[in-house]
């Protein structure tokens, strides 16, 4: 009787069906939907917010109510509007920093992986240096010495300091791919070096690059919010500044839980969406990582799927004899 094993053989499907299969993965789909929601909010946040986030009112430090869904600050500002409007800054900084870091990591990582000898080694040393120096203190130092801090400046600083991890991963992958037979065969066919890098090696790196991009966006979002929380912030609202004001006004001591709960939940939700996307990418690339909780249970709790082993079951689906 055929039993699904934990090892999946890649089923050959046409390319368009393969791409759809990525979206069909529940984790990836959820992540995409959530991200889409956030991007949408980033675009329209300013318009659909019921109040101007900076506008003071007479309702000081009030809990959630019909008029103010998330309550108000010590100045009577509407927290719900602050969260909505703040989405734009967070999303923009996240995506821009992610893009900058990804481009840098591809340039440095793939080049250092493909070049043999001194060039590759020195680029690798460079990325290792940036990797080991703790990012957050470095970002804090740099941004606190900048004269003006706009969203773009912060995004750039974050992007310029967080490319090293992706570069290292890409270098390792390129090194391994460079020795593959098809790269050698492409050389033997007469392909030029740049075409080999761009068309033979990089298409095999897309999953790694995509995963790196998502991870960097997560990191950038958290960094931006951290910076705002510490007090390094731009003039615009973002979720971190909400928390900054909450902290400096001793919201906790006054029991104003509504001040910082929504912002934190929003951050967690965005982070979760991005992480789910990452899982989706990972599992799409290596089918083994897909959780197969369902198949084990289908044959009764008696069967334990061991990695790499195929249990042999009798036709009636009862406890199997194979181990």
């Amino acid at each position, binding site marked *: 009787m055929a039993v699904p094993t934990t090892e999946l053989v890649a089923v050959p499907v046409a390319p368009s069906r393969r791409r759809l299969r990525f979206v069909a993965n529940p984790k990836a789909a959820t992540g995409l939907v959530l991200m889409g929601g956030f991007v949408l909010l980033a675009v329209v946040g300013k318009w659909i917010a019921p109040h101007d986030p900076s506008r003071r009112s007479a309702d000081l430090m009030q809990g959630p109510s019909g008029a103010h869904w998330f309550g108000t600050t010590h100045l009577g500002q509407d927290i719900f509007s602050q969260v909505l409007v703040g989405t734009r800054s967070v999303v923009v900084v996240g995506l821009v920093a992610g893009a900058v870091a990804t481009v840098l990591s591809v340039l440095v990582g793939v080049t250092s992986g493909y070049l043999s000898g001194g060039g590759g080694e020195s680029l690798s040393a460079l990325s290792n240096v940036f990797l080991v120096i703790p990012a957050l203190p470095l970002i804090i130092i740099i941004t606190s010495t900048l004269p003006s801090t706009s969203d773009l400046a912060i995004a750039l600083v974050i992007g310029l300091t967080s490319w090293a991890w992706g570069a290292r991963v890409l270098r390792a992958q390129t090194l391994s791919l460079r020795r593959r037979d098809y790269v050698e065969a*492409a050389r*033997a066919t007469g392909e030029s070096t740049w075409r080999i890098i761009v068309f033979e090696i990089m298409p095999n790196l897309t999953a790694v690059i995509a995963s790196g991009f998502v991870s960097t966006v997560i990191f950038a979002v958290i960094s931006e919010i951290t910076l705002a929380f510490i007090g390094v912030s731009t003039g615009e609202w973002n979720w971190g500044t909400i928390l900054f004001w909450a902290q400096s006004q001793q919201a906790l001591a006054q029991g104003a839980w509504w001040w910082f709960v929504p912002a934190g939940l929003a951050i967690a939700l965005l982070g979760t969406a991005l992480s789910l996307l990452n899982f989706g990418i990972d599992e799409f690339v290596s089918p083994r990582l897909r959780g197969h909780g369902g198949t084990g249970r289908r044959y009764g709790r008696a069967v334990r799927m061991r990695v790499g082993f195929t249990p042999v079951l009798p036709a009636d689906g009862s406890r199997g004899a194979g181990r």
Partner: protein
Amino acid sequence: MTSGSVSATGTTDEVVLEADGLTMHFPVRRRGRELLSRTVKVVHAVDGVDVRLRRGRVTALVGESGSGKSTVARVLAQLQPQSAGRIRLHGTPVPPAVGRRFRRYTGHVQMILQDPFASLNPVHTVRYHLTRALRIHDHAGDDLEQALADLLTRVQLTPPRRYLDRFPHELSGGQRQRVAIARALGAEPEVLLADEPVSMLDVSIRLGVLNLLRDLTVRLRLAVLYITHDIASARYFADETHVMYAGRLVEGGDSETVTQRPAHPYTRLLIDSAPDPDRVADGRAEAPTAGGEPPSLIDPPPGCRFHPRCPHVMARCRAEVPPAFAIGDADGHVAACWLYAAGVRPAAVPEVAG
């Protein structure tokens, strides 16, 4: 193959690609105390190998893993510059090729790799692989589709439209290897270097691919270098056979002679090791007498490199490298063995079983 003037089979087929004294030494990474020493250790992968590839003929290069045969192919394909020795294409010396010169060279000399599962990029379709080969060497012509169909027909993958838009993982091993051959043919080369083209295919498929290569050799008048560890297939497929051991050529001649009347003790070992139903049936299934493993290439044995394993070893073998001596029985049959030096009585040469 000798360094002298006798051509291997006495024919007058045009020599397309030849190499003299091909030598490839790979430097070994130095560690620890070795960093301070002046001497550089090298892996003697290939030493003094001569190759002549003739139009319309298949030349086989037989040897174990580590004998250097794949390195010879890579050097001939200019994927690696040689440490010493000269390569000539149509008689003109070929300097180490880079850039545009290398690309032009690949228009004449193409290579097929061993592993059909690895030699095609998994993200590209068959169409992409073949189109690139055609476009780089400008053989696409006006009708790309027709050119692609022609290529696939030539390697017996018909109907072409069934294969063009497939990915490598959707094809079987034999089909992939045919695509690899088609890609090589897209460059319209004169020389095909086949590095163990059928070793990783199922035994039942091998014959088909070898027949295809044979057919292409004759029809397209290619000069083919067939590298293998299976001497039996060399007899079937190749016109000439040359045997390599530990980076050196030890025997050469036309395939029938070398496989039926092997002169060098190592060739005898190879032949005896191949399972032969006739021998077993006759009750003559003795184990070959020379056991052991190939030597270290960093510190190869002095003199003849086979001497630690040779059942007929003499004092001279340990001291001097034997040159290639002509064995009298067929035109161009040579062996690098002191047993055949002039002045050794023919009776001293041991009888060959079978």
